């Protein structure tokens, strides 16, 4: 089988060897937990508990605030200490439910009970996924029940489980493929039940041969599920590049995966679906990678949502060297943190501590029009010209140059020999254009 891939892309230093062989360690939070009501794309959830209320593990504390929104469930038992705005990763203040952990982890009734998904109706399954507060855990945080409810379910041909994990350093999906492959297949089977015409593809980059082998072993005998090896190249795990590599179909910004007959869910999301449907457990934990050359002992951890990032540092053995930069997520699309005292959310995939800040070390110089950005762009765009337009505040030209097709993967900025801040420019321009469009 020739390996599926896409045009463009880059090969950053992978850094996965730091944490890839370390089994997932479960860590328990200390002290208070902070549950943001906006851990997903869409309307924030509405808090449904008050100060002083007793809550249990798995109890809903935030109710979805609209169609595109998600419930929030408590990951610990204890007392609601406050319902107030708290600071998030990006510096914004968001309404949060703060819970003082009693350390008992008393669950709600029926938590963890086995459930046979084949006896559930499709609507019941979607309702369970919705109640469990499951969102895309690969980073975007799109509510999963909405994804699983396309206009025309019969037109869905492929369920793609995204195990590409193309971001450097991250190994949480990889570890989960090795440690709980049955849950991934179980979750995929639940989704396949919703779409009886669809085939399931588990898509994995070929830098994880043991994960590919493991998943192949587990899906043996499953007629509707296949494991697809993809060429290792960033951003293979992007929705558009993944769909194109796995199925040959293509979508652009105005299209949803469902328009191409696809539903894409990340490994962690599929596991969350399995646990919600088959184990009666809402989304209250996630696996994160604590890695980077500043950590003394990088590690993969299973954490309770709502715990503070600051608590994680000691799980990685503390810092052996002074970190210059700490990133939530991967180095290509992750978010640089200015403070570790922010809570872990459903989309926190990693805590990456680097001793070198390559951005600060590289002064931008004039563009020499080498065209590397054009070759690297998976969207077939011309970043060099887009940047020129955006820098001149010529947003019409930016849109004409298909600037709105950019999904900010960072490949152009990574390869730029002049170290120009291309992606940053595009983010600003895109935000501006989107704001203008909303005004109309």
């Amino acid at each position, binding site marked *: 089988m020739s390996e599926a891939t896409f045009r463009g892309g880059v090969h950053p230093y992978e850094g996965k060897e730091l944490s890839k062989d370390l089994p997932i360690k479960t860590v328990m939070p200390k002290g208070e937990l902070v549950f943001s009501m906006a851990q997903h794309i869409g309307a924030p959830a509405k808090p449904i508990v008050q100060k002083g209320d007793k809550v249990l593990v798995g109890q809903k504390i935030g109710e979805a605030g609209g169609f595109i929104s998600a419930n929030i469930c408590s990951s610990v038992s204890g007392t609601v200490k406050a319902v107030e705005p708290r600071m998030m990763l990006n510096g914004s203040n968001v309404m949060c439910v703060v819970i003082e952990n009693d350390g008992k982890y008393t669950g709600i009734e029926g938590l963890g009970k086995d459930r046979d998904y084949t006896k559930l109706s499709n609507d019941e399954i979607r309702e369970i996924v919705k109640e469990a507060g499951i969102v895309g855990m690969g980073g975007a945080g799109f509510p999963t029940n909405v994804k699983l409810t396309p206009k025309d379910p019969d037109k869905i041909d492929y369920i793609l489980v995204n195990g590409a994990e193309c971001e*450097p350093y991250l190994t949480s999906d990889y570890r989960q493929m090795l440690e709980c492959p049955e849950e991934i297949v179980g979750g995929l089977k639940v989704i396949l039940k919703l779409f009886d015409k669809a085939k399931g593809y588990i898509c994995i980059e070929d830098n994880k041969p043991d994960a590919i082998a493991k998943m192949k072993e587990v899906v043996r005998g499953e007629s509707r599920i296949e494991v697809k090896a993809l060429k290792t190249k960033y951003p293979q795990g992007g929705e558009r590049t993944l769909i194109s590599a796995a199925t040959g179909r293509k979508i652009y910004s105005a299209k949803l995966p469902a328009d191409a007959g696809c539903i894409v869910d990340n490994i962690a999301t599929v596991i969350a679906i399995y646990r919600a449907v088959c184990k009666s457990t809402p989304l209250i934990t996630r696996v994160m990678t604590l890695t980077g050359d500043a950590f003394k002992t990088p590690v993969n951890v299973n954490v309770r949502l709502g715990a503070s990032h600051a608590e994680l540092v000691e799980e990685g053995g503390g810092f052996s060297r002074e970190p210059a930069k700490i990133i939530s997520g991967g180095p290509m699309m992750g978010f640089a943190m200015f403070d570790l005292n922010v809570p872990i959310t459903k989309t926190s995939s990693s805590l990456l501590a680097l001793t070198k800040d390559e951005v600060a070390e590289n002064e931008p110089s004039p563009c020499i029009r080498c065209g590397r950005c054009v070759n690297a762009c998976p969207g077939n765009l011309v970043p060099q010209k887009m940047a020129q337009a955006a820098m001149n505040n010529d947003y019409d030209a930016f849109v004409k140059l298909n600037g709105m097709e950019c999904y900010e993967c960072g490949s152009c900025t990574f390869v730029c020999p002049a170290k120009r801040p291309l992606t940053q420019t595009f983010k600003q321009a895109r935000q501006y254009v989107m704001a203008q469009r909303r005004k109309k």
Partner: protein
Amino acid sequence: MSNLLNISSSPHVRDNSSTKSIMWCVIIALVPASAFGIVNFGFKALILIAACVATCMLTEFVWQKAMKLPITVNDGSAALTGLLLALNLSSTFPVWMAVLGSVFAIIVVKQLFGGLGQNFMNPALGARCFLMVSFAGKMTSFTYDGVTGATPLAIIKNGDKAASIADILAAGDGQTQVSTNVINMFIGNIGGTIGETSVIAILIGAAYLLVKKIIDWKIPVCYICTFAIFVLLFGGRGFDITYLVAELCGGGLMLGAFFMATDYVTSPITPNGQIIFGVALGVLTGIFRIFGASAEGVSYAIIICNLFVPLIEKITIPVPFGKEGIKDGK
């Protein structure tokens, strides 16, 4: 943690390559051609190369100092301009004229338009054309083995259309009896500018650039193929392979196709634009060489096509991913 952490927008990692590393790669790729030129034409060639490189670097330094700009001489781009200019000069060219050309390249063609990345014309070729119109005699006087004579291309151009190319080349230009053949043209044992004569040395450097992915195949391949087809169609000699090889190996075609036409700043950035650019170069070079007054045409073809780059790019913006076959983007 006591200190505030650095924050910046993603991505947070960068590739190792830099403007400087790219420029030095191109300079390394020109080493075979330069070395051959020095061996072929002697110490004078070395002096010219040194003079052009030093002048370009010094001019850039002085200009940036005077204009209170960041000093970027060590990025190698000025040195590269100087080297390319020298390789485009005859070994007998007076040093002071070469120095003048170097100053022109850096100040007029490059810095006046905004410096690195902003010039619309290849600085080395701009300077070569400036020298060509200013000192035509010196620019077209070529010496090989101590004998001044016409280059093989000029000999062919003036040769009898009925005679075979091998005979024409063997006869030389009739006055100084510089006899040669296409093998010598490939190796470089002929008269010409310092860096253009040895096709093999240029191809070694070009292969290095292609392998290191500094340049892309599109421009040189489209250029050379188009030119070859043009020569066969309009050369007036029918399907004469010896003639074709002589035209390909003679003059500045190879140096131009691999090292000048591929100049990042002055060639299209879009993949389809690069193909159009290469084809246009091939056609223009063919017209200049076959129908023009001079046997050469590469420099003029390249600088004229440089001027069309913005237009070419405008019409060759690629279709974004997933929008193939969709009109209007709706």
